[in-house]
């Protein structure tokens, strides 16, 4: 374990609210130990700012163990920073060198308006799930759990897709600011399971329509989303989402209507 202390220069995006223009401001982070997490480094900077009578940097965070999906910021152009498969809260300062200059920005996407500083409004994700990201089952009406066997490989694949934590890094990393990976992960999770079949047809259509309505871009297979995803959610789910969408159109009873532009 090295006990080296780092001195860093931070250029942090500060923006008072959605209508404020926003700008970078520069701060020095001094005597940062390499064992600190990235957010702990920001805590130290913030406590210092408060004691000096200045406004601390606002950022979202909660569990600090990489599962709640609250945190996220772009660090030197990379969503969640340089370490693969790691959320900003699990990133540690040993990934950086003394004297490094770091640029911290919020997720930038028209679907994610900025609330303050590094905090964005991700309620678009809520509405995508509300559009159909569930299996309609009334509490108390479930059949005995083992009455419906699920092939192990399907259960495992569904779990792979269900790992998504809804942080929004995929949107931030995508050149089109597309929410395809997020939407596809939920569509895939539910369509892989026998329990999800009854609503399979409508689910993909409704969720994709909501994703489009929120102002996210389309997928052009850059793969940046998968590279940025802290949970390693795979790009292949997007292919699956597209198949589900086509399938639902082919199978639809109602005539297929062209989407409004």
């Amino acid at each position, binding site marked *: *374990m090295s006990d080296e202390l780092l001195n860093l220069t931070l250029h942090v995006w500060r923006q008072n609210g959605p209508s404020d223009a926003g700008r970078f401001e520069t701060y020095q982070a001094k005597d940062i130990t390499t064992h600190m997490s990235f957010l702990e480094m920001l805590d130290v900077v913030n*406590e210092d700012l*408060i004691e000096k009578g200045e406004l601390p940097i606002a950022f979202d965070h909660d*569990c600090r163990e990489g599962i709640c999906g609250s945190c996220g910021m772009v660090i030197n152009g990379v969503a969640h920073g340089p370490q693969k498969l*790691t959320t900003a809260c699990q990133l540690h300062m040993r990934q950086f060198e003394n004297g490094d200059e770091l640029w911290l920005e919020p997720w930038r996407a028209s679907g994610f308006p900025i609330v303050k500083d590094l905090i964005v409004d991700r309620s678009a994700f809520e509405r995508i799930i509300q559009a159909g990201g569930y*299996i309609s089952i009334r*509490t108390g009406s*479930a059949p005995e759990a083992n009455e419906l066997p699920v092939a192990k490989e399907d259960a495992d694949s569904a779990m792979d897709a269900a790992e998504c934590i*809804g942080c929004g890094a995929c949107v931030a990393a995508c050149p089109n600011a597309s929410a395809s990976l997020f939407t596809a992960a939920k569509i895939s999770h539910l369509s892989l399971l026998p329990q999800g079949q009854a609503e399979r047809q409508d689910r993909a259509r409704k969720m994709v329509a909501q994703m489009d309505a929120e102002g996210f871009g389309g997928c052009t297979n850059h793969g940046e989303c998968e590279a940025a995803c802290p949970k390693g959610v795979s790009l292949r789910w997007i292919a699956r989402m597209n198949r589900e969408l086509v399938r639902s159109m082919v199978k639809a009873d109602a005539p297929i209507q062209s989407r409004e532009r």
Partner: protein
Amino acid sequence: MELRSNEPTGPIEHRWEKHKEHSKLVAPANRRKYKIIVVGSGLAGGAAAASLGEMGYNVKCFCYQDSPRRAHSIAAQGGINAAKDYQNDGDSVYRLFYDTVKGGDFRSRESNVYRLAQLSVNIIDQAVAQGVPFAREYGGLLANRSFGGAQVSRTFYARGQTGQQLLLGAYQALSRQIEAGTVDMYTRTEMLDVIIHEGRARGIVTRDMTSGKVSAHIADMVVLCTGGYGNVFYLSTNAKGCNVTAAWRAHRHGAAFANPCYTQIHPTCIPQGGSYQSKLTLMSESLRNDGRVWVPRKKEDVTKRPEDIPEADRYYYLEERYPAFGNLVPRDVASRNALYVTNEGLGIGPEVDGERRAVYLDFADAINRLGENTIRERYGNLFEMYERITGDSPYKTPMRIYPATHYTMGGLWVDYNLQTTIPGLFAGGEANFSDHGANRLGASALMQGLADGYFVLPFTVGNYLGEVRTLPPLAEDHADVSQAVAAVEERIKKLMNAPHPKHAPEHFHRLLGKIIWTKCGMSRSKEGLEEALREIPKLRDQFWREVKITGSGETLNQTLERAGRVADFFELGELMCIDALKREESCGGHFREEYQENGEALRDDEHFSYVAAWEWTGNPSEPRLNKEPLSFEYVKPSKRSYK
């Protein structure tokens, strides 16, 4: 204060059915006339809000996060128990009930625990139908494992993310109701007070954390599913935002707070790395199946690299002290022993505030015996997480671990219906005290949160509304409402304008946490607790004089949010110490140094077989104690011994 548990009588296996038969109902057509507030969107709150919405009630649900999916239930790793007996190993509802009462060290209510065990099977059915991707066997049926020393395999799991998947199941059900218009969801909204009108809970006061706007929400009743208070220790495995404010505000209005001294310390967490540390990360308990816990025998070896300490100089203290159970002793025993060896100056790892508080968890023997591949299969994810945080590879060097606060068994006192001592105010999940007694068994927190949320609250809420029928309308400009709003605004103003602002709220929270951790943590003594009770009020006064919050309250202000929570932790922390001092016995997570026999906890059933339900008197230093006596008709109290 009168504590009526409202438990049904008769044979325990029929109590819940009988209770349901004799309860009031609200007809489907009438449900939409009732407004219900649910605070919190974790397993208990999310499940309750979704289920009540489905039934046709008008629900408003609140959470402080930006999405209900981020509630801290999401972080639970291990699994959820259910008495399905899919493994044909002799499990039953009765056995799960028995294990839970015994595991709680005979400090829980038998009727509640039996109901929990009964409902456990319905939870699994519900979650599977929602599409929760539980682990499966090759034949397609559900897989189970044995967890936390249980003698049967009754734990269902979804990799190491069981809490996440169960929460997403509840969240998706909740999303469906939001879409259907039965639930109004308020995110980034914090509850700061309860509105009481004519003796009943009739609403809450909230602060919109984005705009700073303080508002009143009026309803027919309020359900709090706001989690535990583990963050009173400052460092815990809880999320940074977890807080006691909602429960504490209710307590100040007359809701009794039960057994606050029952806190659970988990033995295998990544130790504190420095004074800057913001939280602790839990490593699954399963690691103790293959890891050996040790410290150096000699003080002069504590700074050496572990590889350089010869076998003879290693002190495998759990194996030596507990030959029968060894490294697999229960959580509380493992935790306390880590405290003792580090007290003796044998702790390892970096010094934090002049102390070394860590022990080794060594996999070298297991790797030699089973090969690195087997160990990687079993614990690969955990080892990666450990390396990400510490920079060390457990394949090459022993892990460093130390106990950390993980769960709080105490909480708002509730009756069998989960109603607090305030009519119309209910509490579910970790926020109440009801099912775990003095110690919670592994894989039972998820079970309790979902049992309360899906199956108990939807029913008991209807019973309450069926009983009260029509409540008088409460106008927004009624004095009970406007005064509650004014009090919240006044408190915010007071926090924002401390007379001598000096330090951020974190500064005071760290100091409070240190007092509680050292004096009301794994091991407690009369002397230490009395000391804490002298220190806490002083520090609290200093906090109110010197807390410094920059910016304004009329906008997003995370420092203000934190300050309000820390202020409530100060009062709760004092109550914890008072409760721990009063309980002159050792039981479950509460270990009093004066009450032990050969180093083991000494329970005193004659004098302390009761629930301590503390009543607010207006002075945080002088709460009033009410006792709910506990009786055990089915599981007779016996001694826990692991020698």
